[in-house]
């Protein structure tokens, strides 16, 4: 276990270094002289990297605000959205995934899962908004106006309603990703030879599933935690855009459109770092759960 954790920590460290280098290269584009040739770009890259090491990410080209300050303002909103979405994903995705992830139900649910996997997240978000507005009569932000910066912790019923839609959109994307991970683990588990051996030893199908099957499936989900985080961040970008939520993902989209690279770089770095850390934690947690401990 320790050896495995050390190896994964090494991979995480290298990945984070790579992400810092990538983000510094993007931040270097904000330098006026970076486009003059390879050498000026390398010099700008070096300056950006030095700045990163001193937690100086530069300032936004549009607002002139400190990039780290902008990140500090917007990232908590996205993280709140992502973690609330993760909670929805786990509450919805795990029971459904375990229920339909093994046995005959897995095959029966296969066509439905294919259909659900094919719905783009922005279509799902708009469908949710339509149901909320027409059936539940909730307020739904529309148009392409300025992001409203909904409160992370709602103080009124109206704010809860406004926050629920983006959270549900992100949560559904996360639930779909969790569902895929659970089904993949279920499909792998169903092919394992130890099932037959355990049956021959006299264990019932229920015992095999609960004692050996479910931990394997949960290990599969944890192993894919990085993948689930990727789905949540993608969904956050779309949900923030659809529901005018002023989070970091929305800021990323707008900053790319405005070529505000000093803002883009730290957002990208934080998303990549969080995904890598989630993948690391998930793999380390999955290792003892998986009976064989084999890599997927």
């Amino acid at each position, binding site marked *: 276990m320790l050896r495995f954790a050390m190896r994964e920590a090494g991979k995480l460290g*290298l*990945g984070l270094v*790579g*992400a810092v280098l*990538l983000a510094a290269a*993007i931040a270097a*584009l904000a330098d006026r002289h970076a486009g003059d040739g390879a050498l000026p770009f390398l010099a700008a890259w070096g300056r950006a990297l030095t700045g990163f090491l001193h937690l100086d990410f530069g300032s936004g080209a549009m607002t002139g605000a400190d990039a780290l300050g902008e990140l500090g303002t917007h990232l908590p909103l996205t993280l709140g959205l992502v973690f609330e979405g993760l909670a929805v994903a786990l509450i919805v995705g795990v029971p459904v995934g375990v229920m339909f992830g093994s046995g005959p139900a*897995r*095959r029966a*649910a*296969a*066509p439905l*899962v*294919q*259909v659900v*996997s*094919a*719905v*783009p*997240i*922005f*279509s799902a978000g*708009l469908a949710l*908004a*339509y149901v909320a*507005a*027409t059936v539940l009569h909730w307020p*739904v932000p*529309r*148009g*392409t106006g300025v992001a409203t910066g909904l409160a992370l912790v709602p103080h009124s019923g109206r704010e809860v309603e406004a926050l629920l839609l983006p959270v549900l959109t992100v949560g559904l994307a996360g639930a779909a990703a969790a569902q*895929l*991970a*659970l*089904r*993949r*683990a*279920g*499909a792998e588990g169903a092919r394992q030879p130890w099932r037959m051996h355990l049956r021959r030893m006299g264990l019932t199908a229920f015992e095999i599933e609960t004692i050996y099957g479910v931990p394997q499936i949960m290990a599969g989900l944890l192993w894919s935690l*990085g*993948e689930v985080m*990727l*789905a949540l*961040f*993608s969904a956050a*970008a*779309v949900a923030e*855009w659809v529901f005018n939520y002023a989070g970091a993902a929305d800021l*990323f*989209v707008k900053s*790319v*459109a405005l*070529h505000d690279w000093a803002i*883009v770089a730290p957002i*990208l770095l934080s*998303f*990549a770092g969080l*995904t*890598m850390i989630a*993948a690391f934690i998930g793999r380390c947690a999955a290792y003892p759960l998986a009976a064989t401990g084999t890599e997927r």
Partner: protein
Amino acid sequence: MTAATATPWRANGPSLHAMLQIAGWVGLGLIAVAVSLSDFLASAPANATAIGPLLAAPSADFRFGTDVLGRDMLSETLHGLSRTVRGALPATVVTLFAGALFGFVAARLPRGLALGLRGLIGIAASLPALFLALLAIGLTSRDWVSVAAGLSAAPFAFVRAFDRARQQERTTHSEYARATGISGATLMRRDLVYEFSDTLLSSAARALAAVTIILSTLSFLGFGAVPPHRDLGLMIAAAKSYFLHAWWTAAFPALALTLLILFARLAAGLDEGERA
């Protein structure tokens, strides 16, 4: 080899998996026909305004209704589908070459170089493909949206192909081949031919599903198709302001998009738990 190609048929007939795969190819074929004949099938040319009343609900005259400029939604959906598919095809080719093929070849490079490449691409794979595509468009221009979508889907395809090639390298036939003096390059050519003859179609369909999602999301966010040339993502984005009282303006393009992605996923023979 995917799970689908491994066990497509049972002794007494096609399995559910194989039937879904066939349905996927039939669906993609029908979409190809619709795209090829979109100018003929559509009753109005692309972006033709004032064809009917504004925001008319679906009826016998306008089966998919009309939008806020009086455009026939059936015709617009067909043109949008055509535009989406035409954008997705080059992106699919980019993903196949920059992802699947490059990953397969990279795994056979000298160990240090191969693992270095795997690490580099792994960093890109730890970012959402959508963000990579946005970044690529930000660094270039919207004219490169297909290439950006293809490149952003490539890291995942690269990692998958790389890991599969590394597994193949450890198989008994590879060990025997190396022991008998067959060179690494010859072995790679041989494996490449087998790999692609087995999985080219399913890899292409898988890449098509992935890039279609990315392309349409880019257009939805305003980074893809440029008006007046509208694809399905842009049509849905345009409907954002008024879809609550005119659901058909978003629902039919969204349905067409979902069908395209669904058929591509089915044609790829993706197991239920597999990502596109």
